[in-house]
């Protein structure tokens, strides 16, 4: 991974500057904030990758897989439209977080002072 602001400290001689660390920290925090704000939508997206029946709404919603219209009606639920393309959403999210947060943690441990032992 290309680590912006990190390349110069790979060999444990220089510490990354605080501003760079803070910027990457802020971007990382925004990513996680977004994840919490849209948590219910993300659950809904995951559950509607396959055919499902939802009972209730929001954080309290329950999802049943492999539903039939009769069984879904019996539990008072709603049959949801599904799309296989939803599967791309978690993949894109973890890639993005991995890159952004990975860069931040690497800089974070450097600035805190944890470095690998030098090659003997």
């Amino acid at each position, binding site marked *: 991974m290309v680590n912006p602001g990190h390349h110069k400290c790979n060999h444990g001689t220089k510490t990354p500057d605080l501003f760079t660390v803070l910027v990457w920290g802020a971007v990382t925090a925004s990513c*996680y904030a977004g994840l919490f704000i849209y*948590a219910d939508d*993300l659950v809904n997206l*995951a559950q509607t990758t396959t055919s499902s029946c939802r009972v209730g709404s929001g954080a309290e919603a329950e999802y*049943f897989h492999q539903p039939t219209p009769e069984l879904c009606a019996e539990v008072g639920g709603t049959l949801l439209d599904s799309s296989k393309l939803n599967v791309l959403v*978690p993949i894109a999210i973890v890639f993005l*977080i*991995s890159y952004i947060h990975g860069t931040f943690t690497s800089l974070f441990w450097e600035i805190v002072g944890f470095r690998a032992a030098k090659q003997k």
Partner: protein
Amino acid sequence: MELIQFIHLDLTSTILLILVGFVGGLVSGFIGSGGAFVLTPAMMSLGAPAMVAVASNICHKFPKALVGAVKRHKYGQVDIKMGVVIGVFAELGMLYGKQVMTGIRNNFGVVGTDLYVSVVFVVVLGIVGGLVLRDYFKLKAQESQSLGTVRDFKPTAAARWVQSVNIPGTMMSFPTANMRVSLLFLAPIGFATGMLAATIAVGGFIGVPAMIYLLGVPAIMASATELVIAFVMGLGGTVLYGLEGFVDVRMSALILFGSLFGIQLGAIGTTYIKDYQIKLVMAVIMLTVLFSRIFYVPNYLSKLEVIAPLSDQTMKTLTMLGDVVLVLALVLGAAMVLSSLFKGMAEHGKSE
């Protein structure tokens, strides 16, 4: 119709997932792979069904594997060709492993898959944990006899035989690992790795030892090449499980949060210690997690009516005992890794 409930994320479960991710990452970074043997049971203990725990775990792992593979490729430690070839067979193993899981779910429900995952965990951790512990005692004894020459890598007799077999039409050359091996040996290793990964979200327990002991790949290259395999099959596994709606990306992301901090700290820790110390940490954690899973098995058996029904109180007590031992494994693992790191840094500081 079946209820697939993602866990409710409150403050406690969020913090726990981050902490568990951190310890999982710490362990992964320290022993090369296998944070999943901490993560999958922990997610199940927080209430995630086994399929969701395995799927979300696989989803958090593959981008990390890619990042690691790219880094270690720069150091010349990765045999990409071998990783991709084994990875493709691992993908097939994963497909089959997932079929097995789906079959169990359709026949015995979610409790069936919970039981299956727990039993596989107990068996695999028992065998591999025991072997690793034996290896630790052997290497430690060797080191005390020969004053620290255990780092030299010699292929096992099995590996020398595998490399000497020539089956026309199936031979493949791997320039980075500097060997020629028949595809017929790579295929079952990949298949078994993938099948295990689909079941407990960690295939490295088969892949890495198989590459070292059966193919004769040096340990450092085996653990690096495993990252390519993990990426190939992790991406495939996420798509497979995701298509059935089992990937809880909130859980994957929270684990990734803790894990990305832990994995780097764990990796830094490895630069301060001896190889066999890694094996001790690995064995201790594996065997403690194994012990925790044993407590859950009677509950699953009771729910499936395989054994006489247990009282609610007994089930609660067993679950609590399992949870306590799991927490102990996590704390123990984190403490061992961190103490190695701090001790190593202090000694390193003195010697400079």
